[in-house]
């Protein structure tokens, strides 16, 4: 037996290795939430395959009283329920860690490691004895191991019982059966095994934070942003965003007489989805679609029309592994360039880059103000990690005094007063013209919207000078957007340093932990978290103010780095890529390791 490690309280990683379709997701999620209910923050990641059943799936729960919400890397306790991935799972356990397995069928010693502690519970035998139906035996096995883990880790059983009550509210028989299974596992461990040296203790480290998926948060943001039309087509990992919007609208946007203050259409494809959004935006409704990279590819013609014809639209792009169909259920940040320049011809689109569900809510609402203000497509760039995983995040907040910004819309009365209306006139010098809603006035304000070139009064024109003038105005509008995009957030190192790092989105929590680790090693890096595109002057000042800037992102080609070079004219040699793109959420260890290695190599080169 290895030397027992010191008991670690509220600071360890548990990973569940399951078979997709075995019904484990609910039990694993309950395990995570029970710890949260004990006042201890958790960071949970669901890593699942793109099939219905049979392939491996993992659920990683980081118990972290310190509040680190990214992945750490490494596993302290592996709950190995999938024979297919046994060897890989066992190899992933940290030295001194634990392996929990179903010991109904004995395994040879060669299947274990001598630097870990093995805990066997005869789950199959217990369930076979207790249940008759095969499906019951499988489903309750998950609850049995949750009960066993509760005993091993010191989780309060009453908390889990309460969660079961909430999950199966009104179904007393199901609650009783699940509670019985829970106790079966718990009792076995209590009678036969010792608690682990990984323990959960009640704490008060969660505060008022909420535990929610980014997709759900973004959908709620769309409700608060005043979106009334949603057209969508199912695609992982964005589907739950549309479904959440539907649920929130049913709860929050239904008239007393049962009528809907919204319209949601599951379109026939992604092209129709964005077409409906463009039509609704043209006609004065706030409209959005949600999709992923492959959907954005299909939508690009309409996105170009939105850009050129200047029609508000919002797209929630929940990014995943790519290119093409790639890894549909794995996370990446690989749509940046595709979204920023979507469509043929010269186009540029604003993007918002939320870092957690809290920002998904805020930016979900903000996107509609920006789309109306800028009269263009605005992307909200989530990814699978934020979108489909539950994150601990600040509570949603809304200022009731906040007014929706409908942008420059010329009203009936303004038209009646004889104000000059030229659909594409730059009246205010900010590149943003005024528009009218169809049907607003019997004789004024009507115009023809088209994708072909036109003069400031919306009359078709192929005059070169007219076209250039229009394209330059669109660039001016993009400049205006810089001031409207949420500014980046800078985090200064404790000491003055020539090194900087730029990052965004779901990388954020792992990045923050990595910065702490690097500081601990005496490596100081100033950090800038981007929250949108186009890049503001502050972003370029940060790059200019450092000799070397690491750019951390989850794609192969350094797409953010490319955007910085392209839009900011930054010397490529100055931007050092730190790239993670295997489909799993980036870890603090990976970032800190990569940056430390790059800094060390640079030191060696400098010394030579």
């Amino acid at each position, binding site marked *: 037996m290895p030397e027992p490690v010191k008991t670690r309280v509220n600071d360890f990683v548990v990973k569940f290795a399951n078979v997709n379709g075995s019904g484990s997701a609910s039990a694993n999620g309950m395990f995570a939430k029970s710890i949260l209910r004990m006042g201890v923050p958790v960071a949970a990641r669901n890593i699942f395959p793109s099939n219905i059943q049979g392939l491996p799936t993992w659920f990683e729960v980081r118990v972290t009283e310190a509040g680190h919400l990214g992945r750490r890397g490494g596993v302290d306790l592996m709950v190995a329920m999938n024979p297919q991935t046994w060897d890989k799972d066992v190899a992933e356990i940290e030295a001194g860690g634990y392996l929990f397995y179903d010991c109904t069928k004995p395994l040879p010693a060669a299947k274990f490691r001598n630097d870990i502690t093995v805990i066997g519970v005869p789950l199959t035998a217990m369930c076979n004895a207790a249940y008759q139906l095969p499906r019951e035996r499988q489903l309750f096995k998950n609850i049995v191991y949750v009960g066993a883990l509760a005993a091993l880790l010191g989780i309060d059983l009453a908390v889990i019982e309460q969660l079961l009550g909430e999950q199966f509210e009104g179904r007393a028989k199901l609650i009783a059966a699940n509670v019985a299974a829970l106790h079966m596992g718990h009792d076995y461990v209590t009678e036969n095994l010792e608690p682990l040296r990984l323990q959960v203790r009640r704490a008060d480290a969660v505060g008022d934070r909420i535990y929610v998926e980014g997709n759900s948060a973004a959908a709620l943001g769309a409700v608060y942003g005043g979106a009334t039309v949603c057209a969508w087509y199912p695609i992982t990992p964005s589907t739950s965003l549309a479904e959440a919007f539907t649920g929130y609208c049913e709860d929050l946007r239904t008239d007393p007489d049962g009528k809907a203050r919204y*319209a949601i259409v599951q379109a026939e494809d992604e092209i129709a989805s964005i077409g409906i959004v463009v039509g609704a935006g043209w006609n004065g409704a706030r409209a959005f679609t949600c999709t992923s990279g492959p959907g954005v590819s299909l939508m690009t013609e309409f996105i170009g029309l939105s850009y050129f014809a200047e029609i508000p639209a919002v797209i929630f792009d929940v990014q995943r592994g790519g290119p093409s169909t790639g890894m549909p259920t794995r996370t990446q940040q690989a749509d940046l360039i595709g979204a920023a320049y979507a469509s043929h011809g010269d186009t540029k689109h604003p993007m918002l880059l939320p870092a957690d569900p809290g920002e998904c809510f805020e930016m979900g609402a903000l996107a509609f103000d920006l789309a109306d203000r800028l009269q263009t497509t605005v992307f909200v760039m989530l990814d699978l990690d934020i979108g489909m995983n539950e994150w601990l995040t600040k509570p949603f907040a809304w200022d009731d005094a906040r007014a929706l910004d409908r942008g420059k819309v010329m009203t009936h009365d303004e038209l009646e007063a004889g104000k000059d209306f030229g659909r594409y006139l730059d009246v205010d010098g900010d590149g943003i013209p005024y528009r009218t809603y169809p049907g607003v006035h019997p004789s004024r304000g009507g115009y023809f919207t088209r994708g072909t070139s036109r003069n400031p009064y919306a009359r078709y024109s192929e005059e070169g000078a007219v076209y250039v003038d229009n394209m330059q105005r669109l660039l001016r509008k993009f400049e205006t957007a810089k001031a409207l995009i949420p500014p980046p957030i800078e985090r200064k190192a404790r000491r003055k340093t020539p090194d900087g790092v730029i990052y965004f989105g779901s990388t954020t929590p792992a990045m923050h932990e990595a910065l702490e680790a690097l500081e601990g090693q005496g490596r100081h890096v100033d950090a800038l978290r981007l929250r949108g595109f186009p890049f503001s002057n502050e972003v370029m000042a940060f790059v200019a103010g450092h000799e070397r800037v690491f750019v951390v992102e989850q794609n192969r080609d350094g797409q953010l780095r490319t955007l910085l070079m392209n839009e900011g004219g930054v010397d490529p040699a100055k931007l050092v890529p730190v790239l993670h793109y295997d489909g799993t959420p980036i870890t603090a260890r990976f970032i800190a390791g990569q940056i430390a290695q790059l800094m060390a190599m640079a030191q060696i080169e400098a010394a030579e």
Partner: protein
Amino acid sequence: MTYITKPQLHHPLLAENSLGFTRRDYEGSVSTLCAGCGHDSISSAIIQACFELDLPPHRIAKLSGIGCSSKTPDYFLGASHGFNTVHGRMPSVLTGANLANKDLIYLGVSGDGDSASIGLGQFAHAVRRGVNMLYIVENNGVYGLTKGQFSATSDKGSKSKRGVVNHDAGIDLVGMALQLGATYVARSFSGDKAQLVPLIKAGLMHKGAAFIDCISPCVQFNNHQGSTKSFDYVREHNEAVNRLDVIPPRGPISVDYAPGETVKVAQHDGSVLSLHKLAELYNPNNRAQALGYLQARQARGQVVTGLLYIDPDSGDLHDSLETVDTPLNQLGQADLVPGSAALAAINAALR
């Protein structure tokens, strides 16, 4: 499309409708289509229909895709908002526009290239959703802008201007519309204004997906011997099943058809469609019969025109979605934003 402004002067004694508009008020810019193009006749029929129905031009939203036909919304209803979208995708844009404001009248104009090829899917889905619109396909069976290729509605065995024989079966958009659940389906001919104008009027007043397949010969590339979409061919093979008149709820109208059996169909808005039967056995309230009748006549080489099907009890997409009576684009912040109190409850449920 070229924008040519029409002279503002017009005859001072032009007839006015009940809104005080003359026919000129329903016109648009000067057409740049070929002289004699059937599409211009359809534009003229739209203008006449809207004028006669006393529709406020600005309350009509006209949308189109890409192609000769899709240029035409520039040539009528100049005071209306128009949207020349992208190839084949007008139906989705119209659907979105309709969702935003249910109070406007939506007129979709498309062509056989636009609707029967790239846009076939969007055409189908807009129809099956029951979007409240009049969708007119100006069907010339040829790609005119790219100089004469067959379109998907070109009949099998018909010939191109160069004499090439089309080996692919033609898509019958009327048959499709019937199968997809359109609640108003008609076919007409750009050269038969007496038939077309009432069909457009009734389609504009219909609640739900109204579809008119209007054969509109292309004088440049598909008006020759061997074409089944030429003026001569359609005139020779046209079989009108009925003649239509529209009686709006607000005013009397004279029926100028020859005496015979007349069927009256009341619509939701109070208008009455007066159908004078030409084909004795034809029943425009029976979808299945309509399909069978069409296919039988098609096999004989006949082009059936007239009002082919109508469901007087039709609904639309807003009925299905059970949306509020106020157009969505007119809902205020108080209607849309649930506020901080609702958010506090949501936060509590997420802990």
